[in-house]
């Protein structure tokens, strides 16, 4: 694997992680306000 390939793979992981964390952040805020679990139920 070349250095550039490695960097693109890391970039993809960063993007996916950020997307999941963003979704979880909204869910966490709503859960604090209204109640609810962080995991389970709808993913989107």
């Amino acid at each position: 694997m070349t250095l550039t390939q490695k960097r693109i793979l890391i970039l993809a992981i960063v993007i996916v992680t950020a997307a999941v964390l963003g979704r979880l952040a909204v869910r966490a805020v709503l859960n604090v306000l209204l109640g609810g679990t962080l995991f389970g139920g709808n993913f989107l």
Partner: protein
Amino acid sequence: MRRERKETKEKKEKRRGRVMWGVIYVAAFLVAFGGSVAFKMTYNPFGDEFSVDWNDSVGRVYNDIAYGEGEANKFDLYLPADDTKSSYGLVVYLHAGGFTSGDKSGDAEILEWLCQRGYVTAGINYTLVSEEHPDASVYSQSMEIKESIPYVIAEAEKLGYPIDEMAISGGSAGCCLALLYAYRDAKTSPVPVKMVFGAVGPSSFYPEDWKCYGFDLGTEESDAAAREMFGAMAGKELRAEFGTPEYDEEIKDISALLWIDENSVPTLVAYGKYDKIQPYEGSKRLLAALEENHVPHDYYLCEHSGHGLQNDNKVYGKYMRKITEYLDAYMPIDETM
């Protein structure tokens, strides 16, 4: 010397590359995070399944029709475009807001959606508990709703839409008031009440259920806090011991489940298991009362959600679809009339 210079240049380029990629990673993280937040906050999993493109071909709405002296005593009336029927079913939807906020305009989408199905629909405001109205209570609000129904029906009739049956519904505080009307006041309604539906509405007021407020601790302080809050909601001082028939009698004015009997109307409700605003435990009492009295009912539990039913789109969708099934079963529209 030349070799050294070449090595330094390579090192510099490497460092520049590392910095550049570091910036790219951070930027990508921020963009993806922000996009994900925006998407999560705006995504509607149901598309236009429970909404309608409202225009004159669907119906028309009359806003702020008065039903009493109070500033808040107003309702919006949605009339279907087809005005040729000899009678119509009325669906009332009462707004949420913890008895202290909210407005009928917030429910335009569901009122329009139900109107598009051929029903006359109404969103009714009630006097909210506030500094200007410190004496308002759940009880006074429920009485305003009771007083408003004849006005809604009369206004619909005046506009050429005679009402011969009705359903009442609401969200949260509105659901609490809808359940009260359905179980406590239906017999005073000018037209038969055929069904009630709603989400996350409190219907029972026992301190042991209200864990989310710490009323279940059984201490003097927790009992006093529960007594104060429930008393404010009931609009009177509560004197009886919790858990006694005397307490049930005192709280009955605002506790919908205490009015349930074998003649109660079919009921469709949805609750969130982790609700922090009103307790899920209370909904189990409601369910037990419906079962005990053999009242036709459907109870949807959002296992991962709180007061917003926000983490269980699948269950919420089922609840919304069940509304149409209930309307078709208990308040069908006669296409021949």
